[in-house]
């Protein structure tokens, strides 16, 4: 394992410290319990919080700031945070209009946020929770822990954040977050595994000519290994289940997110974007908004996920609204 780290036990705290120092104009860090919060929180708007295991940066700390999250709660690498920092972050951002928890659908995240929400409610905070579960790689949710929350989370956070920023009520912010979750679908592929610092070994094994389809974002293996294929074929393999699921139909306007898993060169993401946009166009689906880059990563994993979000005027307007975070910024 080769990493630019000091003691594996300090990876998250040191990274959070560095992040807060580099972006002191936007966020500050609370050290114990550990969370990141907007420098200007609380404000007189609905608060929005997300969190989860570390290793997915810029998710979530990179999305704290004007028009998006008010706080982010990082757990250990690939391990959901405990309730304490979630409660602390929740009370820190509550300006009296309530707080929305955006939670990716993993047992650990759901359970810890659940406990935190109970505790925060006991302290008088009006807390709602939206569970993001956009990953179509997980089928048969009757027989599984349900679909995972993956890169679509970024879209939920941006759009809910914009709704909160314009002054929407907790009910309305929650409703729009749920709407985004209902309209976004994702699926990923890994070319290489990743190495969790405290584990020191790769999360799974792939031969030199193998790729893993349907991976999650925690270095967990996917549903199937297949032989390496040209990028265009891989794009079609991911996009098919995404399109068929909602299903997306001719005439839809969509946002297309090509998300790098952390170690993928940018040229490869744009090669994938190029073909994904064409496949959608061929089906009469118009890509009206795009996002390409490392937004929901798995440490140094090479690979990507595709996400497609069905847009309408409201979602488009909220997407376009100003945002000022470390990782997503426009309009100010």
């Amino acid at each position, binding site marked *: 394992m080769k990493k630019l780290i000091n003691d594996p036990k300090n990876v998250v705290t040191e990274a959070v410290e560095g992040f807060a120092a580099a972006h002191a104009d936007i966020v500050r860090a609370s050290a114990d319990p550990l969370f990141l919060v907007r420098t200007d929180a609380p404000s007189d708007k609905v608060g929005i919080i997300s969190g989860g295991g570390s290793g997915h940066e810029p998710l979530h700390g990179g999305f704290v700031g004007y028009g998006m999250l008010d706080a982010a709660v990082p757990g250990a690498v*690939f391990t959901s945070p405990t309730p304490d920092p979630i409660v602390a972050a929740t009370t820190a951002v509550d300006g009296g209009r309530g707080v929305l928890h955006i939670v990716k659908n993993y047992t650990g995240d759901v359970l810890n946020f659940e406990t935190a929400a109970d505790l925060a409610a006991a302290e008088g905070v009006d807390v709602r929770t939206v569970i993001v579960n956009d990953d179509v790689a997980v089928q048969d949710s009757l027989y599984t*822990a349900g679909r995972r929350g993956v890169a679509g989370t970024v879209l939920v956070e941006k759009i809910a954040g914009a709704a909160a920023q314009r002054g929407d009520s907790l009910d309305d912010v929650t409703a729009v977050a749920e709407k985004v979750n209902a309209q976004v679908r994702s699926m990923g592929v890994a070319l290489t595994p990743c190495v969790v610092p405290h584990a020191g070994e790769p999360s799974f094994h792939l031969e030199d000519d193998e790729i893993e389809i349907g991976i999650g974002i*925690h270095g967990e293996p996917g549903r199937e290994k297949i032989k390496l294929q040209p990028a265009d074929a891989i794009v079609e393999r991911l996009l098919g289940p995404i399109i068929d699921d909602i299903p997306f139909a001719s005439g839809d306007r969509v946002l297309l997110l090509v998300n790098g898993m952390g170690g993928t060169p940018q040229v490869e993401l744009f090669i994938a974007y190029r073909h994904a946009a064409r496949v959608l166009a061929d089906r009469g689906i118009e890509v009206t908004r795009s996002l390409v880059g490392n937004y929901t990563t798995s440490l140094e994993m090479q690979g990507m996920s595709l996400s497609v979000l069905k847009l309408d005027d409201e979602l488009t307007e909220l997407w376009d609204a100003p945002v000022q975070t470390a990782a997503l910024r426009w309009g100010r």
Partner: protein
Amino acid sequence: MTLGTEWATDWVRASAAVIAENRVELITLDREIGDGDHGENMDRGFSAVLAKLDGLADDAIPADVLKLVATTLISTVGGASGPLFGTAYLKAAGAVAGRAELDGASVAAILRAARDGIVLRGKAEAGDKTMIDAWNPAVEAADAAHANGASELEILEAAATAAAEGAASTEPLIARKGRASYLGERAIGHRDPGAQSTLLLLRAAADSARNAASE
């Protein structure tokens, strides 16, 4: 001979030791069908518990120890196992509230309450390939031993033995809860890490009782 606070604190120490010893094995099991952090999570949690043990009041009863474990696991472990084991110890503490000495009925009640707490939070059923597949047979074996008039030590021995079989029984299963459920058939042949840590904790409980008996 009933089990008191000393047994409870011994159990914590033994748990912390056995989890630390098996940290890498638990990580490896979790890497195969999960995300590779279970050993690290449990080790972080029980190290934290160990560090707090000296802070217990002199007149602490077993329920106080169990509650300390519960709150510390909840606030340091994270992941799925933190709230699940945390709830388990919390419910276990509730089952023996106020009792300075635990008899066979109390020991069996601890295990049952712990298991029920995990089911309450995690909604897993038998055969879902989770820690519940170690807890269920452990609770049944403990109840059966208690019904047969077994000693506290014998009850815990029965539970640990059954948990070991239960942990092994997860190997051929497809998972329906937790991260391993995303793998479908590819989870077959791998042991559930949470079931493995369950057996380690219950074995530590029995070993601590044996030490108490031999003193």
